[in-house]
């Protein structure tokens, strides 16, 4: 009945067996403690929702309406007090080291209360993921230990990602496009580092962050081959904040302009550049794409969890309303059509969640999380005392050899089909979960009628918040093209992507 002869070839036909079985493959590899951690993370997030997020979500929204320059420092400080900015940073770098996939579960919970507040926490991990994707362990250790120190001394130290520019948004997330993009953020090589000039816009958490993982280019006419990633800290000469954008929703989370005017970034804060890429097998362009894919494969699953969360928040508000409001002489929830709408919304939430969970399984097997998910290392890091890590292990992180080793594992040894899998699934999760988020918000308003448009009924805030999810981390259109490129077009020789 079963024969191994020739099975591999059959299983490699589309849809490829390995593409659709990340969860199945992960079952035996997943440390049991990760499951318990996830339960702990969800309970923590639900307490945070009950005690802080839901009581304050509308207030933050209103404060930003009243004063477009308002910054929610008190909320950031509360999250910092609760350890949320180090909760998912590996213990190697001074964090609490909870498993990274559970971050998505945490984000879903918080986003079900307020996507803006979820961003105040989640976007910090976008900065963390960017830093980690460079696999420059020395800079990673320095920056993330700053965050850990900020937790201890009560001064939040967040990390942002600065990539979007006034003339280039979608472009900068695909190497095929960035070569033709109108980028302006220039990093000039000077003795001892880089001199940075240009502006970044729409930088989430910009005004609230201390470190900014900044993407720039040494040759503006050839950005695909000259990308550099620099760690810029507040207070560095030549770096300043510009205006905050006036957004429709997610008002708790500022979108900032960052301005660089002859900002000198020393070599010890260069996360990644052509000189470093030259030590590895693949071309500069290919390694840059790997770095971007590592970031996006994690962050797009994160945005998928935001989409799931806002879809759930809208569903919960609609359910609450339907359980209380009388329409046509009986409770709305007892109208058959309303029950079908609520079932549809529940389905949207469940499928959106499955999409980010499956993506994170892929990231655990093939992507950003794979080393930390290796069972012996997972348990070693879980049970080693932090003092021992700090005193004995930490000094190794500053050795070039360790960075070289991690880059060997993550850059040279990652197969093409592996990053296609993580990248393709991340895009799938991003656009399906965020479409579900917007859809559920619209269904909630449809079901609630006039009550739905009132801000005090929350559903309309969810709708305003949800729309941004279809745009950032690559528009949903770009993500559809990326899915095509990664999981469909590769098997169709005639297919060309981004050459319409």
């Amino acid at each position, binding site marked *: 009945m079963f024969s191994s002869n020739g099975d591999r070839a059959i299983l490699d036909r589309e849809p490829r067996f390995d593409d659709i079985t990340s969860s199945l493959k992960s079952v035996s590899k997943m440390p049991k403690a990760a499951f318990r951690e996830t339960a702990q993370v969800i309970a923590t997030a639900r307490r945070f929702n009950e005690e802080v997020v839901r009581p304050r979500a509308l207030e933050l929204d209103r404060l930003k309406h009243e004063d477009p320059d308002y910054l929610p420092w008190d909320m950031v400080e509360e999250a910092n007090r609760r350890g949320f900015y180090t909760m998912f940073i590996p213990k190697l770098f001074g964090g609490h080291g909870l498993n990274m996939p559970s971050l998505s579960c945490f984000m879903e919970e918080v986003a079900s209360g307020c996507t803006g507040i979820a961003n105040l926490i989640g976007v910090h991990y976008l900065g963390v993921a960017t830093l980690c994707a460079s696999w420059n362990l020395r800079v990673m250790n320095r920056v993330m230990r700053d965050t850990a120190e900020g937790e201890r001394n009560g001064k939040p130290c967040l990390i942002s990602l600065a990539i979007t520019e006034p*003339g280039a948004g979608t472009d900068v997330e695909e190497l095929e496009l960035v070569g033709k993009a109108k980028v302006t953020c220039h990093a000039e090589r000077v003795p001892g580092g880089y001199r940075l000039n240009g502006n970044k816009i729409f930088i989430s958490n910009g005004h609230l962050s201390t470190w900014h993982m900044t993407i720039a280019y040494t040759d503006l006419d050839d950005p695909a081959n000259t990308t550099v990633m620099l760690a810029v800290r507040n207070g560095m000469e030549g770096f300043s904040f510009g205006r905050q954008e006036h*957004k429709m929703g997610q008002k708790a989370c500022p979108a900032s302009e960052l301005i660089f005017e002859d900002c000198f970034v020393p070599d010890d804060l260069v996360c990644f550049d052509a000189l470093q890429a030259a030590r590895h097998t693949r071309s500069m362009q290919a390694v840059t794409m790997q770095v971007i894919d590592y970031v996006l494969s994690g962050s797009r699953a994160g945005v998928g969890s935001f989409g799931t969360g806002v879809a759930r928040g809208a569903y919960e508000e609609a359910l609450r309303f339907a359980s209380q409001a009388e*329409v*046509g002489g009986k409770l709305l929830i007892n109208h058959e059509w309303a029950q079908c709408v609520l079932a549809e919304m529940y389905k949207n939430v469940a499928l959106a969640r499955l999409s980010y969970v499956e993506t994170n399984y892929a990231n655990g097997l093939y992507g950003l999380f794979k080393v930390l998910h290796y069972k012996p290392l997972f348990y070693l890091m879980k049970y080693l005392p932090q003092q021992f890590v700090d005193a004995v292990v930490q000094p190794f992180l500053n050795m070039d050899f360790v960075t070289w080793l991690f880059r060997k594992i993550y850059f040279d040894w990652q197969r093409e089909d592996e990053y296609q899998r993580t990248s393709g699934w991340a895009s799938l999760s991003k656009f399906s979960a965020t479409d579900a988020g917007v859809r559920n918000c619209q269904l909630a308003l449809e079901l609630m009628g*006039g*009550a739905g*448009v009132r801000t005090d009924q929350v559903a*309309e805030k969810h709708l305003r918040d949800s729309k941004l999810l279809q*745009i950032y981390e690559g528009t949903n259109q770009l993500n559809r093209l990326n899915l095509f490129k990664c999981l469909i077009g590769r098997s169709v020789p005639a297919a060309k992507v*981004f050459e319409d």
Partner: protein
Amino acid sequence: MKSLMNSELGMFEQTVSDFAAGELLDGRQENDRFPYGPLFEEVLRKARAVGFFSVTLPEELDGCEMGVTELCVLLDSLSRIDASLAAVIFTDTLAKEIVYRSRGFLQLKDLVARVGEYGGGLFAFPSHADPADSRGLLAEPVGEGLYSLSGTVDYVVLGGIAGSAVLPARTAAEGYSFFVVDLAGPGLGVSVPVASLGLHACPAVDITLEGARGALVGGEGLGAEYLERVTGTMNAAAAAMSLGVMKGSFEEAVSYARQREQGGREIINWSEVRRILARMAVKLKVCDMVVAEACRNAEESLPGWELGARAAALYSGEASVELTTDGIQVLGGNGYMEDYGQEKRFRDAGQIRSLMGIAPIRELELMRKVLEGEPLY
């Protein structure tokens, strides 16, 4: 709507468009900040002065004796720039039409003549609710057509700025009745403006009444009948507002797509972007035809025209929500920012869709009428 245009209607459309471009365009973003910024009182005064309020009422009632078509052209042309003023006109017209259609000519005559502030002659109404579900307000007769009203009414649009309100309440009779209430009278508590999704410059409040005086509109228990008399006109008007918002969103999206470059070329030359625009164009064109058809049938009083107007409002409401969602998407991050008009149109479309009650309930009501034999086509 072009198919309806004659020279007179064309001039009217041009007048409204000029007014919108001159009075609404520049202040759109600032006006939308209400209640965190000032109300556009000067615009309301000018709109009243040029006769945009009560357009469907007879001249004796300060109206222009215009038909459904003119009302739709007015609301469509205003909403193309900023739907808030159109929503003010919609609410005022709905309230006054209910009183007028209940043969309340004299009742209206005194009230619309109220002078003073811009809001003196305006009427407020809970225009996002189905009055049949409104059970929070009770009315006790005190003699000579006057009643004592106690209870609450949520989300009364214009309640904070209008001189009078038309509110649904329950009496001893079956069904509900409408009452005209002086909003400056004793026994009334008005909340701060209720924060909402869209149409910020057309604000609403929650009203609490404790023995407030109300004048019965028409007969007791006949509220549903009076509402039915104006439903066709007001559904066509709601559809026209959705249509105007769609036009604004589509035009902004096309203009931006022609200018914005990604990947070394204008995004309008990306076939996926162009297809999004094409889907927007199809929805827009269909809604334009649907509203025009509703107006034409209304003017000729063809059997079933009210049903067509209901269908137009339901279809346009849903289509405008979808279209304005895409309207933001074409502009990407810029579409989400207040500097462009797209995010406001997205919010306004959602708000307009909820006019006159929960859309699925209105769909079921339409189907009930079809099953009772009203001609659908």
